[in-house]
């Protein structure tokens, strides 16, 4: 197999069949793998913040859950995916540091997950599986041939969801 397509922080990319796509070291960010099981076009977004409308400097669409998901869907449709067939698997949204005081800033992982789910619901995209929250980082790989999302963490056995 060719080397996997790599998605960075605040980035999204389309993954044509039968390639695989990965993003490394998700912390409080959320990784959103979208997949059209018929055309087998896949895509992966790595978003950092929940809401583009709350921030004035929002030129980088891939940074936010709302605009990042919309952007990825558009890019996948251009590559032959059909929007109403898309399904999602999501991972990440951890809280990396155990803060004693809880404010919004510290619950960013949770807010990213909520915003992601809200946007997916709005677009009518079902979340088939998730591995979210907790306090550890995750590396994820999405395989367009099987529709499988592999999750790797430090000191934990790898999972496939």
């Amino acid at each position, binding site marked *: 197999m060719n080397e996997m397509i790599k998605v960075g922080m605040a980035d999204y990319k389309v993954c044509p069949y039968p390639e695989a796509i990965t993003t490394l070291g998700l*912390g409080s960010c959320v990784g959103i793998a979208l997949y059209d099981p018929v055309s087998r076009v896949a895509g992966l977004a790595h978003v950092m913040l929940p809401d583009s409308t709350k921030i004035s400097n929002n030129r980088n669409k891939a940074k936010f859950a709302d605009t990042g998901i919309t952007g990825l869907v558009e890019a996948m449709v251009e590559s032959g995916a059909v929007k109403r067939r898309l399904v999602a698997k999501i991972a990440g949204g951890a809280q990396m540091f*155990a803060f004693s005081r809880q404010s919004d800033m510290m619950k960013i992982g949770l807010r990213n997950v909520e915003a992601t789910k809200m946007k997916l619901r709005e677009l009518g995209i079902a979340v088939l599986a998730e591995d979210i929250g907790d306090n550890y980082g995750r*590396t994820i790989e999405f395989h367009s041939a099987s529709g499988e999302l592999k999750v790797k963490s430090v000191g934990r056995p790898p999972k496939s969801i």
Partner: protein
Amino acid sequence: MPKVDLDNMDSVYFDVLKEIGNIGAGNATTALAKLLNMRIDMKIPKVAMTGFDQLTSVVCSEEEIVVGIYLLLEGDVAGSMMFLLKEASAHRLADQLMGREKPAGNTFSAMDLSALQEAGNIIAGAYLSSLSALTNLTITASVPYISIDMAGAILSVPAIEFGKTGDKALLIETCISAKMMISGYFILIPELASYDRILEALGL
């Protein structure tokens, strides 16, 4: 409008922030040397504005395990600060702090973590008090929080903070070396308004 725009930083401001990083890291190194009672050399810090997609790769690869000590800042300068050690450096520092002759191995005990956290606190405190003395601004830091995980995951925390105001992060990399190599990185993450306050306090 804030004077400082991280995505298009004026070179004068950049030099000032670089110098602040220099002084802060110098004081932090002195504090660490006192704590360990040994001579520690510091390389001239590298200060870089990096896109946060590259923030991790400046330090190491995304999946490499690092120890992050994170403090929240309040007062005239609000934001956060991170002191980052690669796993091997953290083990060496823990051995040194605990006065062990032989390396303890691959896991951190609860005592090791507590010692590292406290070292992070002292180092970050020295960094911040020099910044505070220089600018005459009040900066108070929270208790230190520690996490050991993939570099990408740890660095996502400051990256998100930078992400709220721009697409770039200010990274001050300081390599400190003792008899054994211990290298660490500082990341100072003031809120955008705090940059203005720092520069204003310095008469810019």
